[in-house]
C-alpha cells in the first residue's frame, strides 16, 4: 500500500515540476525538454501505481504495463518531430552554438 501511494506522489510531483519547466524555460526546444522527460517519468510512475493498486485480473495489469511501454517508446519520437518541424519552420533557438543551422542552410 505504501509503495503505490509513494509512486503516485512521485508521479504527481514530477508532473508539477514539468509544468513549471514548460512555463519558465525560454524557447521551444528547452520547453520540449521539460514536457518530454516529465511526461514520460510521471506517466510511467502513475501507470505502474495504477497497475499495482486496482483490483482486476492479471492480464489487465499486464496491458497497463504495455501502455507504459508504448508511452516510453512514442514520447521521444513525438518531441523529435516537434523539434525538427519547429527548426525547419524558422523558429530561432536561443542557443550559443547552432550546428544544425550551420550544416543545413
Amino acid at each position, binding site marked *: 500500500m505504501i509503495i503505490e501511494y509513494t509512486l503516485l506522489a512521485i508521479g504527481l510531483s*514530477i508532473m508539477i*515540476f*514539468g509544468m*513549471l*519547466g514548460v512555463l*519558465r*524555460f*525560454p524557447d521551444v*526546444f*528547452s520547453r*520540449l*525538454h*521539460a514536457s*518530454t*522527460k*516529465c511526461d*514520460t*517519468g*510521471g506517466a*510511467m510512475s502513475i501507470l505502474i501505481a495504477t497497475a499495482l493498486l486496482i483490483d482486476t*485480473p492479471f*492480464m*489487465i495489469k*499486464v*496491458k497497463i504495463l*504495455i501502455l507504459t511501454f508504448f508511452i*516510453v*517508446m512514442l514520447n*521521444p*519520437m513525438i*518531441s*523529435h518531430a516537434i*523539434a*525538427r518541424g519547429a*527548426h525547419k519552420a524558422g523558429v530561432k*533557438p*536561443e*542557443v*550559443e*552554438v*547552432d*550546428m*544544425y*543551422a550551420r*550544416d*543545413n542552410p
Partner: protein
Amino acid sequence: MSRVTFYLRERIEEIKSRYELERQESKKLPKEEKMILTWIIILIFWFIVSGEFYWQNMLVGGIVALIISSFMYENLTDDLRCRGSLVRKILFLSFIQIPQYIFIMIFQVVESNFRVAKHAIFLDIDPGIIRIETDLRSETGTTLLSNSITLTPGTLTIDVSKKLDKTYLYVHWIDVKTLNMKKAGDEIKGDVERWLKKIFW
C-alpha cells in the same frame, strides 16, 4: 605506412569502412530465423492483447501470426546482428539484454526528471545544438539510440543525417560542456551505445 600522404591515408580509411559495411550486409540473419523471431514477437503481443488462453484462441493466433510473419519478416528483424544460434540469441535477448536495457533506462529517466526539476527551479541553463557521431548504421539502431538520448538527462535529439556511410545526430544539449565531437559523444551516449552495438549493426 608512414610515408603515405595524409590524403591517401584518408582514402584508405574510407575504403576500409566501406568494406566493413559490405561485410556486415552479407552477415544478416537468414530468412527462416527472421520469420521465427517475427512469429514469436507477434504471438506474445497477441496473447497479451487478447488475454485468454483457450486452445482455439492459441491456434487461431498462431496461424494468423504465421501468415503475417511470412510476408512481414523484414520489417522488425532486418537489422539484427548475426551471432550464435537462434535459441541462444532468443535466450540472451529475453533474459539478459532487454532487462539490462530496462535497468539502464529506468535510472536515466529518474535522473533526468530530477535534473529538469532542478533546472526549472534555478534556471541555470546554457543550451546549444551540437553534432555527434555514432557507429550504428542501421535504421532501428539509430531510432533506438536517438530515443534513448532523448530520455537521458539534459539532451534532446533533433535530426539524423547520413553522410558517407557515417551517421550523425544533432542534439540539443541544455548544459553545453564541450564542443568536441568525440568528448561530447562519449558524455551523451554513455552505456546505451555499447549496449546497442551488441544487437544492431
